[in-house]
């Protein structure tokens, strides 16, 4: 077996391991949604598990764990900053809504 093959076979074991973790996390997400906790806690738990799954996919399947180039990380960090602003800024603006607005299912 060449070095390249040995290296790839190690990666393949990792991919199968990550798949198992993702499948378990999916089941956990469903189980957690049936817990008797507040809507806020449901939200926090569901998004935390989703974020963990996303991290695994990005790090292992998309090979970010092994990418070291500063240019790529620069692009990703800037994207993350803008995404945070894109979601946070409108959400933070909700404080300015008139009294007649009911804060729906998460209020």
């Amino acid at each position: 077996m060449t070095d390249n093959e040995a290296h790839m076979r190690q990666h393949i074991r990792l991919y199968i391991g990550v798949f198992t973790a993702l499948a378990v996390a999916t089941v956990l997400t469903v189980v957690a949604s049936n817990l008797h906790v507040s809507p806020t806690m449901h939200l926090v738990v569901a998004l935390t598990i989703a974020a963990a799954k996303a991290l695994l996919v990005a790090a292992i399947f998309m090979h970010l764990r092994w990418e070291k180039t500063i240019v790529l990380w620069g692009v990703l960090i800037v994207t993350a900053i803008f995404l945070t602003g894109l979601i946070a800024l409108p959400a933070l603006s909700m404080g300015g809504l008139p009294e007649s607005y009911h804060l729906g299912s998460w209020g």
Partner: protein
Amino acid sequence: MSSEALLPHTVEPHPVTAMYSGKFGTWLFLASEVMLFGALFSTYVLLRVGAPAEGPGAWLTHEEAHLSWKIGGFNTLVLIISSVTMVLAWASLKMGQFAKGRRYLIVTLVLALLFVAVKMTFEYLPHIHDGYIPSHSTFFAIYYTMTGLHVIHILGGVLIIGYFIGPGCALWKENPDYYTNRIECTGLYWHFVDLVWIFLFPIFYLL
């Protein structure tokens, strides 16, 4: 005429980005996709938090919306498995195993089509038949927008993967490293599509 003469850095890393250009270009494209779906997720947050208690703008429960977590959960597992087969296709090609890599690509394609088939058969078509169309409520408006855009991305991926299983695989004979790199880029796109669903599933089916 070699592929390298037409496009530079299809295999050799670019001196500035330190990776082959297709990969960097794909990441830039995915950054724009993050903003596209991010804007819709932001819209979802606003619509849900601002939803009134009654009327067409009121938020629906999963029972009211006839959304089954079992179907959503099944489709989640289908996409996760397709992500694994996609990366295994690339790994096989890196080891010079073209036939095996192509088989994994075919499985990925079949799983993608299964996802779309389940979505259409058990969700979209019954919903439309029962009158749960985008204009029914705010919930269904954003549901169809986000999941519909996601399905369009799945179909785009089906076209790309289908191309590399079919006519595109001629590139393997001419330049196997270039072909492998293009599969890696396809994989990056595919994993991103899986990533979006990882967030769509809980927000529409569980929360």
